């Protein structure tokens, strides 16, 4: 196997915000073509870690180095003020100049190309998540950071979104950092899982992490069962009947 390009590397990195360390001693790396998942309870420092990688926050100790040319971000919460008239096409272009073909291509990939001229405020939760992802991938980043991309999306939508993320990783051959607070579908598509709770509790392949005592202590027994349930579940194909209905 050829060595893929190293996109970002954290060495013992930490962020201090008075009066405590938000995260500390974080070391891992993300390579091209790899999906790395950060899991952990609320307040465990997942978003902080992502923000260090994206240079939104500076590491107060340790090192964050990387040679990703283009990073793209799908933030956890994004509230577009209703005082701003904004169509999907305008939103797509906010950080980079894109041609209409590029915009249509990536909206088609996430399945929302029909919404091109719709107002952002009129989109449903699931549509908005897909537009957010389309915007992030439109400029073909080599590192994509997705912070809880399936929140506010129903069960079927969640499966579809994770399949989409896998597809993006293959098509763009980019590195992906995925953040999630639950284990439900994350595991099967992920190459490397990092379990976070202010520090790295454990990390490794999904099947090794889920057996780790630290992980079980943090998430409880039933979540390891969720994984086995999911692996079973994934042996079957899904159809989209009845999906995205509220």
């Amino acid at each position: 196997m050829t060595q893929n390009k190293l996109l970002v590397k954290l060495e013992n990195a930490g962020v201090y915000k008075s009066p405590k360390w938000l995260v500390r001693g974080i070391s891992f790396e993300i390579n091209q073509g790899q999906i790395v998942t950060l899991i952990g309870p609320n307040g465990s420092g997942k978003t902080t870690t992502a923000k260090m990688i994206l240079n939104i926050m500076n590491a107060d100790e340790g090192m964050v180095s990387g040679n990703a040319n283009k990073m793209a971000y799908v933030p956890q919460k994004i509230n577009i003020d209703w005082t701003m008239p904004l169509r999907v096409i305008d939103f797509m272009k906010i950080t980079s100049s894109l041609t209409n073909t590029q915009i249509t291509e990536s909206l088609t990939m996430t399945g929302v190309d029909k919404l091109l001229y719709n107002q952002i405020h009129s989109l449903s939760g699931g549509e908005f998540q897909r537009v957010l992802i389309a915007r992030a991938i439109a400029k073909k980043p080599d590192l994509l950071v997705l912070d809880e991309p399936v929140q506010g999306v129903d069960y079927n939508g969640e499966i579809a979104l994770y399949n989409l993320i896998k597809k993006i990783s293959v098509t763009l051959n980019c590195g992906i950092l995925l953040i999630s607070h639950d284990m439900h579908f994350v595991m099967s598509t992920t190459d490397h899982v990092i379990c976070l709770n202010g520090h790295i509790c454990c990390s490794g392949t999904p099947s090794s992490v889920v057996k780790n005592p630290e992980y079980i202590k943090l998430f409880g027994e039933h979540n390891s069962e969720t994984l086995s349930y999911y692996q079973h579940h994934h042996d079957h194909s899904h159809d989209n009947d009845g999906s995205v209905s509220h």
Partner: protein
Amino acid sequence: MFDDFFTRALIAGMGIAIVTGPLGCLVIWRRLSFFGDTLSHSALLGVTLAYAFSINISLSVFIISGTVALLLLSLQKRTKLAGDSLLGLLAHSTLAIGLVLIGFLSSIRFDLMGLLFGDILAVTVEDIFIIWFGGFIILGILFYIWKSIFAATVNYDLAAAEGMKPDVSNFIFTLLLAGVIAISIKMIGALLITGLLLIPAASARSLSSNPFQMVMLSILVGIASVIIGLFSSLEFNTASGPSIIVTALALFILSLIPFKRNRALQK
């Protein structure tokens, strides 16, 4: 053609409206109307100092408003006060200091009403030059940072993550706001500048479906407010600043009517 005070006022007012259009949209989108108020209240202090040291009013206002803006940015990171309390504190204390200083400068005759609400007669050829030259610079810088400031307005984290340097553009935008107050204080007055920033942009909001449209429409509404406002100020012998703002308000109310009709048709 600059001989006529009314022509001068028209040219100056239109220059101001072109600059307040795009900046006003950003003020609305970023919910900075109270911030604008604070800067313009502090402008009165700038005017007083300009008289006291016989320096150019716009320059002095720009320095004072700019300082207050930067003070605010740094205080926000340090104090436990909420943003709006901090704004109120600075707005009213700078306004009060300005008024107290006016009391000390008893040797100079002040037209206080003119300072607070604008004076149509006060516009000189030099003012026109300051407004159009200053406005041109403000718009030029705004155009240059537009992509970054717009991305930061939509979402700060997103802009920061994707290399748009939102902190730099936020900082520059704050100074531009101080700049627009500096060039328009004489014409519109310290208490009403925020109105010219907000109301045309608010009128444009209900009529536009994308950001570019909103910017263009708020410029147009601003220009219309200035022209109609100044003519009615001449006709009814009312103060220029308030007349312009009342016209803008009338246009805002008008802008709401077709909006509702469109909505009804869409449904």
